[in-house]
């Protein structure tokens, strides 16, 4: 090889390398830029969402009026039921009552304007300083919002994770099974039963409790464990599993048919793509077709559903938990809303918002990993 040729080749190699380096550098810049923009966008979304929650939870400050009225009512009842306070001379009693009202208002922070408090709520929320509740205590008696949520979180996660994971994977497998047997008896059965999901889980729960707890007396009415809770860990777990049978069943009954129907339809659409027909024509096994040509392109959707499912576990379900007397986060949030306990409401919201934002952010990258058609920060095809 001549020197010129060698030089040309070297030049060409260098050019390729430079090209590759430039391309890599460009990709990195693009990804970084995209990441930054995405993070800022998501942060702004979280800020707006949380501040809206603060405004809504406080009815734009009207909750202060409600709280002031409630304080006066509760103070009057306290005095009415206290024979000693009742017997005080009117002016002394007035003084005492006004002082009690002042102290209560101070405790709720009503001595500060709402606008100021709303900014403080926002700042604390964004920095994940969940702070202290106004009226609620955690199960162990703490006013720290962190503990109010954390103490209930395991109970919520264990129930809804079990139920929803079973539901999710069962639905996927049933759907795949049905998509292979379109028009079969089982397919028609699921299609027929799909509307049964219009009833919520707690609705099925009531019937299950009546049948299996009240009538047959084979399963507990509700609660997380037996009363009193067993001392032994193994017995505790067994008791918890027994108490989970009805709620998990209720969730499955309420959703399995519709979820299976939904996924089955989704898979059917993908199963009729040309490339699937081509694969069939090539004589690939149905298992291979399912794995390579149906599941793979639908993976972003499956992952999205799964990720959102994991977030939804955090929310709990107030009515469902009430029906099964399950000590979950849903009841906490429900109670907080009823009590206008802003810090707890805001904490629940901000946690959910952050989880959602992080999930959405990560999903963008996951899509790129599982689907070669997706290019992060790219034109047109980027998500």
């Amino acid at each position, binding site marked *: 090889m001549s020197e010129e040729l060698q030089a040309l080749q070297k030049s060409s190699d260098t050019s390729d390398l430079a090209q590759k380096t430039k391309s890599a550098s460009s990709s990195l810049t693009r990804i970084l830029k995209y990441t930054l923009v995405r993070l800022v966008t998501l942060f702004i979304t979280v800020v707006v969402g949380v501040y809206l929650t603060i405004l809504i939870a406080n009815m734009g400050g009207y909750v202060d009026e409600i709280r002031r009225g409630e304080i006066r009512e509760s103070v009057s009842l306290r005095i009415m039921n206290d024979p000693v306070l009742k017997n005080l001379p*009117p002016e002394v009693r007035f003084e005492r009552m006004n002082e009690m009202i002042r102290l209560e208002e101070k405790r709720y922070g009503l001595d500060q304007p709402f606008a100021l408090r709303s900014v403080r709520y926002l700042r604390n929320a964004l920095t994940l300083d969940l702070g202290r509740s106004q009226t609620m205590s955690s199960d162990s008696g703490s006013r720290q919002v962190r503990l109010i949520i954390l103490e209930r979180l395991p109970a919520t996660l264990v129930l809804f994770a079990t139920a929803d994971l079973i539901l999710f994977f069962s639905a996927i497998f049933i759907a795949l099974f049905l998509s292979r047997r379109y028009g079969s008896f089982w397919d028609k059965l699921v299609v027929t039963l799909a509307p049964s999901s219009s009833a919520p889980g707690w609705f099925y729960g009531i019937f299950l409790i009546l049948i299996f707890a009240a009538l047959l007396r084979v399963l507990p009415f509700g609660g997380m464990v037996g009363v*009193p809770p067993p001392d032994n860990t193994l017995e505790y777990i067994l008791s918890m599993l027994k108490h989970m049978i009805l709620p998990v069943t209720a969730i499955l009954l309420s959703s399995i048919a519709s979820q299976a129907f939904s996924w089955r339809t989704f898979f059917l659409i993908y199963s009729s793509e040309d490339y699937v027909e081509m694969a069939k024509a090539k004589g690939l096994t149905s298992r291979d077709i399912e794995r390579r040509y149906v599941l793979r392109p639908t993976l972003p959707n499956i992952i999205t559903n799964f990720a959102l499912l994991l977030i939804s576990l955090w929310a709990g379900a107030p009515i469902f938990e009430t029906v099964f007397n399950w000590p979950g986060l849903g009841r906490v949030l429900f109670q907080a809303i009823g009590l206008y306990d802003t810090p707890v409401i805001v904490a629940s919201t901000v946690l959910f918002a952050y989880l959602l934002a992080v999930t959405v952010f990560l999903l963008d990258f996951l899509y790129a990993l599982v689907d070669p058609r997706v290019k992060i920060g790219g034109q047109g095809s980027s998500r």
Partner: protein
Amino acid sequence: MKTKLTLNILSVLLILSVVLAACAPQEVIRTVEVGKEVITTVEVETEVEVIKTVEVEKEVVIMVTPTPQPTTRMGAWVDTLIFTEQGSDAAVTQLKVGELDIYAYSVGNATLFQAVKDSPELAYTNSYGSYNELTFNPAEFTDGRLNPFTNPKIREAVNWLMDRDYIVQEIMGGLAVPKFFGVTAAFPDYARYVDVARALEAYYAYNPEKAKEIITAEMEGMGAALSGGVWAFNGEPITLIILIRTEDERRIIGDYVGTQLESIGFTVDRQYKTSSEASPIWVRGNPTDGLFHIYTGGWITTAVARNQGDNFSFFYTPRDYPIPLWQSYTPSAEFDAVALKLRNNDYTTLDERRELFEQVLALSVQDSVRLWLVDRLSFSPMRNNVTVAYDLAGGISGSQLYGLTVRFTGQEGGTVKIAQPQILVDPWNPVAGSNWIYDMMPIRATQDYGLLSDPYTGLAWPQRIEKAEVVAKEGLPIGVSLDWVTLEFAPTIEVPGDAWADWDAVNQKWITVSEKFAEPQTANIKSTVYYPADLWDITWHDGSNLSMGDFMMAMIMGFDTGKEESAIYDEVQAETLAAFLAHFKGVKIVSTDPLVIETYDDNWQLDAELNVSTWWPNYAYGPGAWHNIGMANLAETDKALAYSADKAEVEQVEWMNFISGPSLEVLKGYLDTAAAENLIPYAPTMGEYVTADEATARWANLVDWYATYGHFWLGTGAFYLYKVFPVEGTIMLQRNPEFPDLANKWDRFGEPAIAEVDIDGPGQVTIGSEVTFDVYVTFKDQPYPTKDINEVKFLLFDAAGALVASGAAVEVADGQYQVVLTAEMTQALQAGAAKLEIAVSPIVVSIPTFAAFEFVAVP
């Protein structure tokens, strides 16, 4: 085709299964037989000899433990109490199948009540104490609209427009009694003045024509005109705004009230609101803005109140409640003066009080700035093999005696499962912890008392005191009912100079009366309490003996937390202390073994029993020994924890919790410190009563206790706190085997002895003739002992419902009385159906019993 058929069959089966499932719960309910009737109100109308009508209204009450059962068992009847959470609907189902034994919450749901009554497995207790009313806005509106309720005659007339019997039967499903006054029908004041009350009730009985007539006249007088059947003012229809609470039956009551007002020509704007939504309008709002005319109010009393005389001042005058609506009240001078006298107990004899009540009952209805509708009746369901003493106002959860009396019938031992809507709502600490009824119920079982409240009369009984002497200032209308207390009167009661009147938080010493005041002090009441000789044998749950230090600590804490100079100062407690010092005059320890304490106070009650101060080491929210309170004080001093929610908020620390949560680790640290230092808190004072040896033993006991049970909750009650499961919502209490009383000590409170009354007499009475009626007062078919009856009164009503005579029945024998209507009395009757009503007021229970007998008066 085959597949289609299969699918059709499957669909049918699916629908069938849903239908069957839907039927399941009702079948469960229907399979039960009609059960034992525990409490019921029976109205029987039977024709006798064509012209005689008998109307019997009687109450039959749960039969539990008729007589104390001999036993050698100490403390509680049962071994374990388990408290858990449950809603009322689910609880009833679980009670039926034996998953629960008691649902301690007072429920007011009529449908559920019927289900409980229909179940052979269930019994129930009844309690009173909550009541509903219509709160009128009596203010002139600034926007020129006419407010009819500025006129007291219109407010009064609305009484005739309200069919309280309809509300009781049709809206409340029988779980209520009609109410006309600011006194509760189940409490002593109603029984005392029942003749006055019944006469007024007859006068204000439902009469819409009369209401319409008066309202029409008054409205026209105010310049309004009835145009096309609708009231208008200045050409504009008069629209009445009713704030209707939506959480309970008040929603239907509000609708009913609206309908009644529409029936006489008013336009009604029904505004449905929850408590939170309504509160800013009626409590905070300016009544002159005219944002409402009527609010459907509700109130609750948590214990049997023996003196409700001050209710008239509270509910009808601007004197006692500093909110805008109350400040718009303008009672007549006469009404205001009488209400003030009753508020301040400004009378010297009970006869004088009676005269005041006669006036105030009438004047309050004439004012009617507040129109009472019903006294609500609540129930607490339980298994029918369970017995328990309950409070007539507070129900089971509010009873001090429930822990000492609850048992399975005829059985010793066992576990009673009790459910409430919530449990462990707030942190437990005795000084300023949770005051939720759901938490106070288990707390009460862990504490003992100097005096116990009689659940049926509100009087006090000695639990840990031997006797008491009360000296009252001459002229105070105080009486005595029970023999454990003596009552004397003195022209003046001087407070000894060496009695303690206040607390020096800096030097941690008591301030004597002579140090605090330059002048000698007097008090309205002096109570001397004698404790039993074996008092110091009583032990706390950790094994420590009760000691003088515990009493002293409780006394000091009552002052120290409210003193600004104190290391544990709390603004909230300062408020409580200020209220206390407004009437407290001094306390003196006369002797420590046996313990004798004198207390001097200006606050007084009508009953000598309620004027006794015991200083038992119970704090506002539970029991406390000097050592666990001393340990907690260390944490409070360091601002590591705070007793009250308010201070915890200010200091941004945990609200102290003796039984669970992050507080425990903090408290454990201070326990170690206290034990290492052999701490005697408030040593300058406590050191005189607590020895170093006692302190050593106490700290060792508390260390062991925490190591065993994992909490710091100590009491001397019949149960100790065994385990807490915060997330699971369960509390376990175990029987305290060291409790010093026999289990049957309070068995006599197994049931309220509500009298049953029957009347017999002629069905036809000639006007102007003398006639005699026989009255039979029984309890469980046995004659009601005369010694247990305060009085048996009769009221004679004519055909128009007007009261023509009243008086006392004459005792013939135990449970047998006669009513003699003289010729003068019958002369006052009109021809037609007349009614003789009997009111029996027992001493041992505050609820009076009524019976009526109708006859025909002929010329």
